[in-house]
């Protein structure tokens, strides 16, 4: 049997040259007449080792990385196809500590399977959740999801089961499932990885959501910055349709469900659910006032479930293994696992799925290995551009929705961006305001005008103009934005700003005005 060699096609691997590796490997395999097949898989999530290639051996998969195209000849000379020894050999993939210590439920197949092989998906427990769902009543599926304790992984943390129940209980001729794949937060890439590495799990999760709520049509709204994810998802939907996973008879049942892939157009605010719905309808991505909730009047005024990619992709395993299995992981009211994305200035960046409850310090220092530059960690921003900057003093905070809220932060979409001691926190606070000004949809005044005033005020502080007065003004502005904005963009921009001010006051100290020489 032909030996399978895995060369990731995940965007992070591509960004580090995996396409050149695949090309060189293909050429060299052909030239040597070897019996080997190249599979373009997703990423295992060990991004500092990308491009990380693997070879299937009777003893399991053996990993090599980071591999450059110029390493291909020496790798094959060393017997790559049989897992031969080489300086880049990392040993058995499953034994790598970064992977071994994870609890991969949502990402169970990512990086392992051929993303576009439905046979591979089935061979790795795929479709079991949907097979189960088609035999249950909608109410039973909703109960399963509710009992699992799954909460919205997009950031808000709203219980998924309750959202689904609202849509199930709302009468409507037409209902929709909308997947929010507008993953715009810096420091996050879990949605992208699952769409590129295991697209069928998202399709399966959406189909289950459709059956559970009576919705027959689903949309995946993917940001235009993710062309690879768009391409993979589009192909996967076609394959699923042809195989009868989607269509007028889902897996041969009487249920119908179909999916359409839509592309965003570069507006960050469309990650906000009501702005996303407007965008899907072909309008400006302006935030809607709530109520009505999308569950009552969502897309085209129809009852709509709008969930994040990871929330939907976590549903199949809940349906397959049962709510108790999932719920047994985690702490407090944060149940199950969370794919933590370790990013920025960090030695071991990548995706780490674990039960809730690891401390921030464990994640940054032990798993992430500290900074890439080798300098001390100054701050970590948790939860994207709307998340708070945490200093080392708060590294004992456990990764849990409530624990982070208690420290005036949020876990958001679980992205962690590490900064070393060269970071200037006043500059970071200014950037948070600047970003909000660029991306504000303009509907509410605190966000639209407050963000611009925030940039100006931060500039005055930096120039040493009436620093005390302007610091008080900035704090006051944050307060207005936090409580007066319509959505999380204006409402959460104060998190990075006030956390930077509170935890790193030295960076906000007045710099004396330089007087021009006479």
């Amino acid at each position: 049997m032909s030996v399978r060699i895995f060369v990731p096609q995940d965007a992070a691997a591509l960004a580090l040259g995996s396409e050149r590796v695949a090309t060189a490997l293909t050429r060299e395999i052909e030239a040597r007449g070897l019996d080997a097949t190249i599979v373009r898989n997703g990423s295992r999530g060990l991004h500092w080792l990308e491009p990380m290639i693997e070879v299937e051996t009777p003893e399991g998969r053996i990993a090599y990385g980071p591999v450059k195209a110029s390493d291909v000849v020496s790798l094959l000379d060393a017997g790559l196809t049989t897992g031969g020894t080489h300086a880049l050999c990392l040993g058995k993939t499953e034994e790598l500590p970064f992977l071994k210590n994870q609890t991969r439920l949502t990402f169970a197949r990512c990086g392992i399977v051929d993303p576009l092989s439905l046979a591979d998906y089935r061979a790795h427990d795929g479709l079991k959740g949907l097979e189960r769902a088609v035999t249950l009543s909608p109410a039973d599926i909703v109960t399963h999801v509710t009992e699992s304790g799954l909460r919205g992984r997009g950031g808000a943390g709203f219980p998924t089961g309750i959202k689904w129940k609202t849509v199930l209980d709302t009468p409507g001729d037409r209902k929709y499932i909308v997947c929010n794949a507008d993953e715009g937060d810096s420091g996050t890439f879990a949605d992208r990885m699952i769409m590129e590495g295991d697209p069928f799990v998202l399709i399966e999760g959406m189909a289950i959501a459709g059956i559970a709520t009576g919705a027959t049509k689903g949309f995946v709204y993917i940001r235009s910055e993710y062309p690879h994810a768009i391409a993979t998802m589009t192909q996967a939907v076609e394959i699923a349709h042809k195989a009868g996973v989607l269509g007028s008879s889902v897996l041969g049942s009487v249920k119908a469900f179909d999916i359409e892939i839509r592309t965003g157009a570069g507006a960050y605010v469309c990650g906000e659910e009501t702005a996303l719905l407007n965008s899907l309808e072909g309008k400006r991505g302006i935030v809607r006032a709530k109520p009505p909730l999308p569950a009552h009047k969502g897309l085209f005024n129809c009852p709509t479930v709008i969930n994040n990619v990871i929330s939907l992709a976590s549903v199949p395993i809940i349906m397959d293994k049962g709510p108790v299995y999932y719920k047994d992981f985690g702490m407090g009211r944060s149940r199950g696992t969370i794919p933590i994305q370790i990013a920025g200035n960090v030695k071991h960046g990548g995706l780490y799925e674990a039960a809730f409850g690891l401390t921030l310090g464990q994640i940054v220092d032990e798993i992430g290995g500290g900074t890439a530059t080798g300098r001390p960690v100054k701050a970590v921003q948790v939860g994207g551009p709307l998340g708070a900057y945490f200093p080392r003093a708060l590294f004992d905070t456990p990764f849990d929705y409530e624990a982070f809220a208690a420290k005036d932060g949020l876990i958001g979409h679980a992205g962690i961006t590490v900064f070393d001691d060269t970071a200037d926190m006043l500059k970071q606070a200014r950037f948070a305001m600047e970003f909000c000004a660029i991306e504000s949809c303009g509907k509410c005044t605190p966000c639209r005008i407050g963000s611009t005033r925030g940039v100006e005020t931060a500039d005055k502080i930096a120039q040493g103009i009436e620093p005390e007065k302007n610091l008080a003004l900035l704090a006051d502005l944050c307060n207005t934005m936090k409580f007066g904005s319509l959505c999380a963009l204006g409402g959460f921009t104060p998190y990075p700003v006030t956390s930077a001010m509170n935890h790193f006051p030295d960076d906000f100290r007045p710099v004396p005005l330089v007087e021009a020489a006479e």
Partner: protein
Amino acid sequence: MNLHVSSRDIGERTLDIVSEMKSLEGPLLPILHEIQAEFGYVPQEALPIIARELNLSRAEVHGVVSFYHDYRDHPAGRHVLKLCRAEACQSMGGDALAERVKSLLGIDFHQTTLDGAVTLEPVYCLGLCSTAPAAMLDGEVHGRLDADAVRDLVAEVRA
């Protein structure tokens, strides 16, 4: 992508695209994406046709086109270089790298070099936050950029 099309051709092609896609639910964004893919930008001449066919006002169509960062009102350079400006890339020296690219190209963000070779655009996150700083050149992604790597990218677009 044909950059030299007459107004009449724009009208005909726009009508073809709209006719093909207007049966979609919420067709405006997919139509605008297709028009930009066809012409390299969204020509003013296309707007009244879209408005008429979708039974919208011209103001509504203009409002949508101008809301989204992706839609251009004039053609870009032969290459488009998008540099990530978001936090994860900042933490790895993205700001300094951006300054370097700007000085190598002699342009600022949102500008095109005089020879029409390249348009430089900011992007707020490519989802390559663990391999920062990152950029996208004509849809191809590049990670862990340093001074040498951006010099090579600039040489590539200048060639």
